[in-house]
């Protein structure tokens, strides 16, 4: 999977590149709009992380040009929170998703993985682990003993953990993802455990073998759990 990172901040591009490479993604970098276009015309990518404020050509222009050229590569726009107009404009011009800076790695990975599944031609909407299947499209969860009814919050937590499989997700990251950035994650993360307890009970994971607790950090779903 090849990802093009476009941002005018070299340090951020470096850091994102390194973190994504650790997740086994191939990464290309561009520091301005024109460099991004050059790379996009020369190579094919599976995903573009596109900042809006860029030198030479801004994110909107880049998006307009590549969509005009018929390049259908999924685009995840990166920009500041609160610029609702930017969000709408980006999505109108053919961006596939939108992520506000600053963001967390679990959030970025979940967005990237969700995008890959959504746009892949033979994408499988089902995420699963240890006899548990979660359909990201129909929003159904099937356990060992049949369908499980989860609240929207519980579903959201499970989905997020599955997208971040084999990675520890902190309560803070979960709170941010589940409630969104308008809520204070410092307030909300204190009560993630309450939702986790209910979720574990529903999926028959009273022992904490499917969703493991990493003390002092958060939770993880991994295949080789104890």
């Amino acid at each position, binding site marked *: 999977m090849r990802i093009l990172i476009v941002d005018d901040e070299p340090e951020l591009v470096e850091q994102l590149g390194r973190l994504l490479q650790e997740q086994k993604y191939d990464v290309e970098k561009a520091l301005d709009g024109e460099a991004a276009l050059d790379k996009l015309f020369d190579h094919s990518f599976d995903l573009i992380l596109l900042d809006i404020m860029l030198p030479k050509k801004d994110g909107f222009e880049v998006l307009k040009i590549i969509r005009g050229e018929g390049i259908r590569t999924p685009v995840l726009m990166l920009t500041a929170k609160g610029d609702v107009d930017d969000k709408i404009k980006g999505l109108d011009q053919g961006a596939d998703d939108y992520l506000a*800076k*600053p963001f967390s790695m679990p959030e970025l990975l979940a967005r990237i993985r969700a995008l890959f599944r959504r746009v892949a031609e033979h994408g499988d909407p089902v995420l699963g682990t240890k006899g548990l299947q979660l359909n990201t499209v129909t929003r159904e969860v099937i356990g060992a003993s049949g369908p499980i009814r989860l609240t929207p919050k519980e579903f959201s937590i499970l989905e997020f953990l599955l997208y971040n499989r084999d990675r520890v997700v902190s309560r803070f990251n979960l709170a941010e993802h589940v409630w969104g950035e*308008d809520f204070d994650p410092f*307030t909300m993360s*204190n009560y993630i455990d*309450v939702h986790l307890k209910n979720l574990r009970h529903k999926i028959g994971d009273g022992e904490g073998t499917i969703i493991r607790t990493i003390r002092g950090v958060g939770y993880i779903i991994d295949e080789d759990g104890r």
Partner: protein
Amino acid sequence: MKIRHKIALWVAGTGFVISVAFSLTVLLEMMEQPYEILDSELETAAETLWASLEPYLREPTPEQLRELSIISSRYWVRVHDPSSHIAYQSNLVEFADLPLYEKGDDGYTVSAYIPRDRNYLHQGSQDEVAFRVRVLKVDSQKGETYRIQIAKSMEGLEEELSDLVVALGSGLIISTLLLVVISYSVAGRIVKPIAEINRLAKEINEKTLEKRIPLGKSHDELYALSASLNHMFDRLQEAFTMQKQFLADASHELKSPTTMLRLFFEESTLRQELPESFRDQLIRQCDIVLRMERLVKKLLELSVLELAEHPKSDEFCLAELVRSVLEDFSALVAAADIQLEVALPPCLPMTGDVEYLRRMLINVLDNAVKYNVTNGEIRIEAGEEGGIVYISVFNTGIGIPGEDLQKVFQRFYRVEKSRSYQYGGAGLGLSIVKKIVSLHGGTVTMESLPGAWARIYIALPKGDG
């Protein structure tokens, strides 16, 4: 005191003083003159009398005396010989005895009692008659000095003088009243454009900073005043915009650095290979970075709101919005053993920006939960009254000291720094609430009993919906 009253008072007051001075001068002049005329008349009369009297002084015949009495009938006359015996006196002397004063050349005024039924001389009700008296010394052909005391009633003169005083006094009163009326209306005309400029300047506030005072046609002082004020508003608007833009730019510039810090610290805390003690350090540092990040997000949110002008006009049910936000807090409220009482109508329709109002409710409820106590209470009420939609959120908890009730809506205000830091508060939540409320043209107030409870009350116009 208003300028209009001051101008009127000064003009009328000055006019009054000038009129009084003028009237007094006229009056004094007018009062002097009759005495001078009368005195010279008395002198002439005395000389005439003396001329006819002298030849017969020793032994006047009765015919001569009658003739004399005709001449002297209009005057009170008494002639004293050198040994102070009365040499001659006129008929009027029978009715009054006037005292003799030696006053040189000047005349003097005395009054005498003459009943009007005996001799009518225009006397007043008291039968008092004022006389102007002169005493003149004359020398006879034999070289003897005689004194002629001659007097005339002044009743007519007194009346005329009092008429004059009345006329001058009433003139003074009328002219002063006129002056007051005219100066008040003139002052009004002068002040009116100033009041108009003041009214227009008042209309320009934080929300209508682009408004200006229209400039008049004539390039007078008021034109200059309006121009100066407009110039001041220009600079004010510029400063306001710059300040808001600075906040927006600064928080925008902080986005990328905080993203980098956050990514680095969050990922570092997951490194199992790092020594335990070092990872604990990292986790604590990471918490600080997350707080900073939260602050940057809130600042940016506030700056976007500061620059926002008109909220969207969505039509929606406010009660449903409240219920959906409450749903997000439900686990939290239950876990903290907080008793929740909700009194909401089914819909409560209004027009406003749903996204902003949702954020407002989240901030308000976040505070109600964050600053509550275990086994505490939250009471939420909403309703409509005369085109105004209100929401009231009551919570038990630490409350706010009375002197701080106004400050809670200021940026970075925190009741207890340590406590809210523990909860991750940045002190911007209520500023955001206030900004959203005022964008909708509403009001927000806070009440509290420190140590017991706090209640926030939000009133919003229902809008067109």
